[in-house]
């Protein structure tokens, strides 16, 4: 779980928050509702998560409520991996 969160955090920091201190991007920092990610950036993050963790995210997983915090995104990833037969 922690490595999943860390991978997502590093991606967001390098792609969308260059110069930001990693400590400021917490597990519960809102991403979309705060303006950190716009719709295009969110699509890029969805694509990154799918490719990185070899999972398919559906409309439910990528709704604003479930895709707004690193902790929630990581939880979806872990759940999908279990369902898909690749427990982390």
């Amino acid at each position, binding site marked *: 779980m922690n490595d999943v969160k860390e991978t997502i955090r590093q991606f967001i920091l390098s792609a969308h*928050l260059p110069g930001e201190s990693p400590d400021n991007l917490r597990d519960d920092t809102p991403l979309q509702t705060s303006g950190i990610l716009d719709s295009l950036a969110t*699509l890029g993050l969805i694509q990154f998560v799918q490719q990185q963790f070899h999972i398919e995210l559906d409309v439910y997983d990528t709704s604003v409520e479930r895709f707004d915090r690193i902790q929630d995104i990581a939880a979806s990833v872990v759940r999908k991996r279990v369902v898909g037969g690749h427990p982390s």
Partner: protein
Amino acid sequence: MIARHLADYLEASAARCPDRIAVVDSQGSITYSELNRQADALAAFLAARGVTRGDRVGVVLPKSIPAVVALFGIMKAGAAYVPVDYTAPAERGRRILTDCQISALVVDGRCLGVIPEQDGTSTTLGAVVVVSAVSDATAIASRTISFDAALESRDRLTLLERNSADLAYMLYTSGSTGMPKGVMLTHENALSFVEWCSSVFEPTENDRFSSHAPFHFDLSVLDIYVPIKHGATVFLISEELGKNPKDLARFIASNRLTVWYSTPSILMLLLQFANLDAREVPDLRLVLFAGEVFPVKHLREVQRRWPSPEYYNLYGPTETNVCTFAKIPSRIPDDRDVPYPIGFACSHCASLVLDDDGQEVRAGEEGLLYISGPSVFGGYWNRPAENTAAFIDRSGVRWYNTGDLVRWDAAQGFIYAGRKDRMVKRRGYRIELGEIERALYLHPRLREVAVVSVPDADSGVRIVAFLSCREGAPPSIIELKTFCAGKLPVYMSPDRFIFEQRLPRTSTDKVDYQALKGALLPPAVV
């Protein structure tokens, strides 16, 4: 019939093909006769509450059938509609609606923060029509009524004289001083453009048009009025659907759209995140794009996936709507890497290329593109200085200075060559860098702000904010992003924030933008 008013198109189609579907949204569809009836009912309601010829009425709604009813209802009442981005910060919408002194408002229940403060002098609202239920309707302005109740109010509409010189709508674009400016467009401005579209694209009532652009974006003028004139069907693409390329590709296929119109950004998004398949779009006959340069490698790829439609590059600022166009060859050569030109002036427009001294430049030389003709706007709302600067007079003809640099080539027409000022385009949206600076200056801990743009291979342009701070810890980048999201539309938020001890100044103590831009460019290879 010669239309003198945009509502004439709807009325003629409602008489000719009353039972055809005019508009489809995510909730359902509406026929021509019903759309016309609802627009009449809303017009009567607004007129009974004091809205009259020459007034402005705000529209702050998602893309939906009620929004289309609102546009026609407002125009039928003799007023001009002022569409405001319902997803942008309410404060920006409120400044716009205050600036143009709306006399009524049709607003989504979630966006009531845009309602101008009524101080009794500048803005007096005759009515606030709220679409979608609100839990606490009594807490807002007293003259509030639901959309459905407004349509059922049974007020009588007195037929107004229609003059094509009346304002039809006002579209606000980014302003360099920080305040968005209202581009005033008359019925004649819009009609001349719609008629040109008819002659070139030859729509029929069997066409199925996409409507991707929001109504505050001038692409929506083609999306709405061209199909309505021809009794065709408009498929509204909601903001939510527009953000989801996979669903959007399915939407285009399942609705068998025949005409697509959007910025290149949206087509690139479809290319990147959805599977575009020619077999799924057998009826697609036209792909129109406008608003920004389309990188050729991506355009070529779209054309490979969707080879049968004709492709057109449409060019024109909000002030003129489309004024030049270029047809893209049916097969883009593999070795072409320069973007396609913006092409030749539309038949209803005249063009002129002048240097800084107002002298015509020779073919092949760079100059500013000027446009005249019936689609050119009358001026900016309440901006006398900018109106003086926007136009020149040459032998009795009024020419609008687009601010765009072009070169003329006899074979290709006009070739776009950039701008000299601080306006940039991102995803088709005009952005004055000064508007971003003004928003950032509102942050209490920032001392100096300078925003620059640099070209970017992937996104077209990157917006970088250079900042220096007052005493104490500087704000975090997340804090600045969130701050911008509260002040600016999302497409204006800078991509990067860079802190400096102090910003470089020129000898006249102005921010040295060239030095800042230079710091961003990769070092030259020696």
